[in-house]
């Protein structure tokens, strides 16, 4: 095995860096060598896809980061059935570019296309269609994995069922995916119909998600975290639908990769690779208030057609947007609440954030449904994700606030998502997952990884042994 270099790796939101040994296998066999190396040297391993988690999921300070981004081949593709088999390091970007011209699209995608299949499975990601299509795991037909105990396994919803439902959502802590077989969704155009409208407060925002979700393929809300009083939680909804067969006069054209590519200039002038510098200037309380207010005021009912990539991958629209949050980065705080308790809990949380002068610079709402995976964040309700800028002096205040939020969410029967929140404690994790789930996961862990070789900083934080 090649010598492992010490390096500094960070998370997506630029809020954390760790000193790690960087391992980048090119063949499945090399993963086993890395397990052996870790065992011999008393090192722990955190698997990493594209490193797009907002927290410590793909980091192990002082340990090995097993970077799977070079294992990225498409191994099989059937354009008749839409079944694809690929290695875990394949990004969603490469994936949709591979299949779209054949009239297929991934049934579930994250808000950025830079994520990898392995990472998406490890976190069991969802998209703006969670209420309809569930999480990505629901579209996995089968996967192969190599476990730290040396075994190679194949899992499907029928074969090695427990491991299937545990490894998908298992934060990479049970084994390493080596091959993933996934069912894609048939599309008849490279475009989607998009509708956009304003909602005057949180109640109408959640009402819109609830009412409109059965009627649409996708729905997502933008929430203005600065608006107060009767306008608290106001925002803008975006809903989208696939075009039906025959609706697009020239699907061969719209499903070309070039048609989907995001423009590289903003307003045709500012190169988008530089835009984050400009945005950085406005990312303070006053600037965000101005932008949010303007966005709300000019917002009106609109409908238009948009390429898939432009609708789905909003996070990629401004390259490196996360850098605009400055030197200390940002945290994302996402909570999932039952539809019955969401309004009260988020009203309280938004009010607290404004009172403490720590308003969220971006709020995003979605509609969800429960799933069968072992570590599940979803439920029959909604999610609201907040972005908070970290500054030199606000860490203690922010930390206190997210702890207070955790209490509100737990009391309201809510859940959390391990790809997003960075401060969730082991006690909180156990409270929302339930002791039974935690024990089930630990039992699987003992079977697959008796020596705890796979042990990311996230796992150490939320599954600490003494809780």
């Amino acid at each position, binding site marked *: 095995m090649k010598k492992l270099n010490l390096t500094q790796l960070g998370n997506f939101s630029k809020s954390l860096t*760790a000193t790690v040994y960087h391992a980048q296998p090119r063949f499945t066999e090399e993963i086993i060598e890395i397990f052996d190396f870790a065992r011999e040297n008393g090192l722990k391993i955190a698997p990493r896809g594209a490193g797009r988690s907002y927290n410590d999921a793909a980091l192990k300070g002082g340990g090995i980061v097993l970077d799977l981004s070079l294992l990225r081949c498409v191994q099989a593709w059937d354009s008749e059935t839409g079944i694809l088999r690929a290695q875990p390091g394949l990004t969603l970007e490469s994936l949709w570019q591979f299949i779209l011209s054949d009239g297929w699209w991934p049934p579930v995608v994250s808000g950025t296309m830079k994520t990898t299949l392995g990472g998406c499975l490890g976190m069991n990601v969802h998209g703006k269609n969670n209420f309809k299509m569930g999480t990505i795991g629901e579209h996995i037909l089968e996967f192969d994995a190599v476990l730290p105990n040396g075994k190679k396994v194949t899992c499907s919803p029928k074969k090695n069922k427990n491991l299937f439902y545990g490894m998908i959502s298992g934060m990479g802590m049970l084994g390493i995916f080596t091959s993933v077989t996934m069912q894609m969704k048939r599309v008849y155009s490279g475009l989607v119909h998009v509708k956009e409208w304003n909602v005057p407060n949180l109640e109408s925002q959640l009402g819109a998600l609830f009412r409109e979700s059965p009627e649409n393929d996708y729905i997502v809300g933008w929430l203005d975290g600065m608006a107060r009083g009767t306008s608290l939680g106001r925002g803008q909804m975006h809903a989208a639908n696939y075009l039906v067969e025959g609706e697009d006069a020239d699907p061969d054209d719209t499903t070309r990769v070039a048609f989907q590519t995001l423009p590289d200039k903003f307003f045709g002038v500012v190169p988008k690779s530089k835009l984050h510098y400009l945005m950085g200037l406005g990312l303070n309380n006053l600037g965000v208030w101005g932008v949010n207010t303007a966005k709300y005021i000019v917002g009106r009912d609109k409908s238009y057609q948009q390429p898939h990539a432009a609708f789905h991958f909003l996070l990629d629209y401004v390259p490196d947007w996360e850098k605009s949050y400055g030197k200390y980065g940002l945290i994302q705080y996402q909570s999932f609440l039952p539809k019955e308790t969401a309004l009260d809990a988020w009203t309280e949380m938004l009010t607290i954030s404004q009172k403490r002068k720590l308003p969220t610079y971006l709020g995003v709402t979605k509609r969800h449904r429960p799933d069968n995976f072992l570590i599940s964040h979803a439920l029959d309700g909604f999610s609201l994700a907040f972005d908070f800028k970290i500054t030199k002096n606000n860490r203690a205040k922010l930390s206190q606030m997210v702890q207070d939020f955790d209490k509100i969410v737990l009391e309201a029967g809510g859940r959390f998502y391990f790809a997003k929140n960075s401060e969730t404690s082991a006690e909180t994790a156990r409270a929302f997952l339930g002791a039974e789930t935690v024990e089930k996961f630990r039992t699987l862990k003992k079977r697959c990884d008796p020596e705890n070789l796979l042990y990311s900083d996230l796992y*150490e934080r939320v599954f600490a042994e003494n809780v």
Partner: protein
Amino acid sequence: MTKSEQKLATATPLSPKKHAILVGASSGIGAALAHRLADEGYQIALLARREEMLSTLTDEINTKYGETRAIYYIHDVTDYDAVSELLPKIITDLGGLDTFIFNAGVAHMVGLKKYDFEKDRQTVEVNLLGALAWLNPVAERFQELKSGQIVGVSSVAGERGRVGNPAYNTSKAALSTHLEALRNRLDKLGVNVLTVKPGFVQTDMVKDAKKLFWVISPEQAAKDIYEAMQKRKQEIYTPARWRLVMFVVRNIPSFIFRKLTF
């Protein structure tokens, strides 16, 4: 090699951690610096020979904050071969390494007209070779990382060869020179190398010494060192007035210096 069993908390964006190794931690400047770094939120690995003192210090720190901020390892710096195994182990236990501090040192009194090779050898083995055994692999890692901070506690005693303690002067002169050389290698990569030159500090090392002046507490020295670390300085004297004194002392011509009795 013994190690305390406590586990350090992992870093999060809202409670980021800095990781430091402090060699020569059990008393004096080392112990004061350990307290100071823990105050500043560092997670520190404390190394020294004397387990009892080290474990008391570790407990004091961890009790004070109600969480594990310090872990310790028993280590004799003349056990050079142990470093290759110990350093990666500590980096793993700490969860990273941002700062390395070498503070181990001995000063044997040999008497004005005495020559004692055994004592001299020990002085060089601890103060110089002990330092090199750590500084080299640490420098290699920081070079790879293109970040990090090395702090070497040398002494004003390294600036001239004096009648009182030739081997101590030699060991500290060599340590200062080695630190300077590391600085010249690493500074351009973004690695800071700080040479600390204390004057007289109220520690075990000077308890039998006479004719001391400007004696400062270990806490004062630790404060000066920490502030210099923050500012990423290259070299400090503690207290600062020694800089001027040593400028004069360094420039006293040999024909005069030979006649002096200190």
